[in-house]
């Protein structure tokens, strides 16, 4: 199965089914969307149906993550195809941006404004009366933990504070869809943990939280589903485990901690579906093309040989392994 096959096997928008209208109103849809910057490819023939929860867009720099987000938010127009967000189209921003909040990767802000003025002023541009705008602004600022710095000029904020104020600006009007471009960049570990909790809370409340990142180890912790991008193409999408299961031609790696790893390895290696067995720091790493048959075999060997097993765990079901299978080592993608 090729990388392209992985993508085509995943579900695409069901535009002509009975429940299509209801499904459309709950999802972010990309229907055959391409974006070219002159001759340069941004993204090509993207089909996506993003459900509520946290969706991570993963890919190296230049893979098309920001293009995808900008198309979602109507800051860019597709060269081909159609984008809709919960049934709303970017051509009508006055409707769509009641529903969307977007924190871009740009670290620039209008000059001369304090954190509080930034949020409250743009809420007033939304059309909120002064009192409501100020209340919503404070609520968002408190939620991202910036209340102490709200009266300071944004220009004097640290990188982490700027990330927080962007997040506050995106969520201040209580959107149903939150699009966050590299939201954890520049945050210290404590702040990252806080933000991750916040994302989880928002997702639990039924929001679509779309996050881009090129730091792979974050993705497993925060994502309900992932969209893997490379060179402007979606190479896979769905839940990490689901994406992993689709890649049948790639052996699954299982880590086994036991008292007699050499014996176990020699028995397992006789099976035709086991392609590799190696010992690393006392852990037996087995690669198999058929996980179900492997686990049956493991049970049999344990019973026959009396091997004591301490733990058995998939060793490559994280997004990093999936990404490496699909794309190979890429510069710009960090562990």
């Amino acid at each position: 199965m090729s990388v392209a096959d992985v993508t085509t096997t995943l579900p695409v928008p069901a535009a002509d089914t009975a429940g299509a209208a209801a499904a459309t109103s709950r999802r972010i849809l990309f229907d055959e969307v391409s974006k070219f910057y002159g001759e340069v490819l941004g993204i090509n023939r993207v089909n996506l149906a993003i459900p509520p929860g946290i969706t991570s867009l993963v890919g190296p720099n230049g893979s098309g993550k920001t293009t995808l987000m900008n198309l979602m938010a109507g800051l860019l127009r597709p060269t081909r195809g159609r984008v809709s967000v919960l049934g709303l189209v970017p051509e009508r921003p006055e409707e769509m941006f009641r529903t969307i909040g977007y924190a871009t990767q740009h670290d620039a802000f209008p000059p001369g404004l304090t954190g509080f003025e930034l949020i409250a002023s743009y809420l007033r541009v939304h059309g909120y009366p002064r009192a409501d705008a100020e209340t919503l602004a404070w609520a968002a600022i408190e939620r991202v933990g910036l209340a102490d710095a709200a009266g300071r000029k944004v220009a004097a904020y640290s990188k982490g504070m700027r990330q927080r104020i962007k997040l506050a600006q995106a969520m201040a009007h209580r959107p149903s869809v939150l699009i966050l471009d590299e939201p954890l960049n520049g945050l210290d570990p404590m702040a990252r943990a806080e933000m991750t909790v916040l994302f989880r809370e928002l997702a639990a409340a039924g929001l679509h939280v779309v996050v881009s990142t090129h730091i792979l180890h974050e993705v497993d912790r925060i994502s309900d589903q992932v969209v893997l991008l490379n060179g402007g193409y979606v190479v896979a999408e769905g839940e990490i485990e689901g994406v992993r299961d689709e890649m049948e031609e790639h052996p699954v790696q299982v880590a086994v901690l036991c008292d007699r790893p050499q014996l176990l390895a020699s028995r397992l290696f006789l099976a035709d579906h086991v392609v590799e067995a190696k010992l690393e720091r006392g852990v037996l790493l087995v690669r198999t093309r058929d996980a179900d048959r492997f686990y049956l075999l493991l049970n049999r060997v344990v019973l026959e040989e009396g091997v004591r097993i301490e733990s058995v765990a998939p060793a490559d079901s994280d997004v990093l392994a999936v990404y490496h299978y699909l794309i190979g080592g890429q510069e710009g993608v960090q562990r």
Partner: protein
Amino acid sequence: MSVLERASALDAAAVPPLPAPSWGLWRRQLAAAVRLELKKGFRGRRVLGVVLLAAMPVTLFALHALFNSPDDPANVGEVGWVFARLYQAFILRLVLFFGCVLVFGNLIRRELLDRSLHFYFLSPVRRPLLAAAKYLTGLVVTLSVFGAATIASFFLAYSAHDGSAVRRFIFDGPGLGHLSAYLGVTALACLGYGAVFLAAGFFTKSPALPAVTVFGWENLHFLLPPALKKISVIHYLQGLCPVPISQGPLAILADAPSPWVAVPGLLGLTLVLLGLSAWKIQRMEILYTED
């Protein structure tokens, strides 16, 4: 209860959702955008260039008043003619023109340069409304600054001369009418040139090229055939000035448009240019960088 306390006690139902789009909502959005533009765009150094430009004619007339005896016998008509020449050649063609380049030419470009235009584009606001807000902000700034400069220049021009004759000219003669006409021309110049450079800001990366092009066109206007004169802003503005001045020996003469033609003509040109800006902002993409 403080705003902070209210925010702490806030639940999702506490703030009513935005009302459906209506004239009331659009008016509120427009007013908020103008306030924000004034707050972030026209403070400190950003407005310094405009104020310095406006101060030039005022300084010129102040120096003239300072170094001329109050008993200068020059007649009031002569003063009016001198003011008319300076107004049309200096204030209208240079000060107002480049003031509008500075203000309106940077309304879009400045936010593209500091990469903050997307904040507006991420608001639930019709984009043409944002263009209108920027234009109105430019008008507020230019009308305030250049209107004040026109009034100050007018009174300073006459202040060096015989007091009683000047008072008679202003309060019993056509003086106030002249001042009103000059103020009207200043306002129309801001409207017209403002629309030109707002539109230019959507189509070019720098205001320099459209500024030089329009400046050349406007200043060669006296050589243009009558048909082409009609597509210049200065053609209508000159026709509205209360004291006509010579266009020079090389000028190709054409009838000055009557106010009934000049004002609607200029407003029509302004509307066309604003329509162009609205069309462009509706299709505008944010392309600071590619990811």
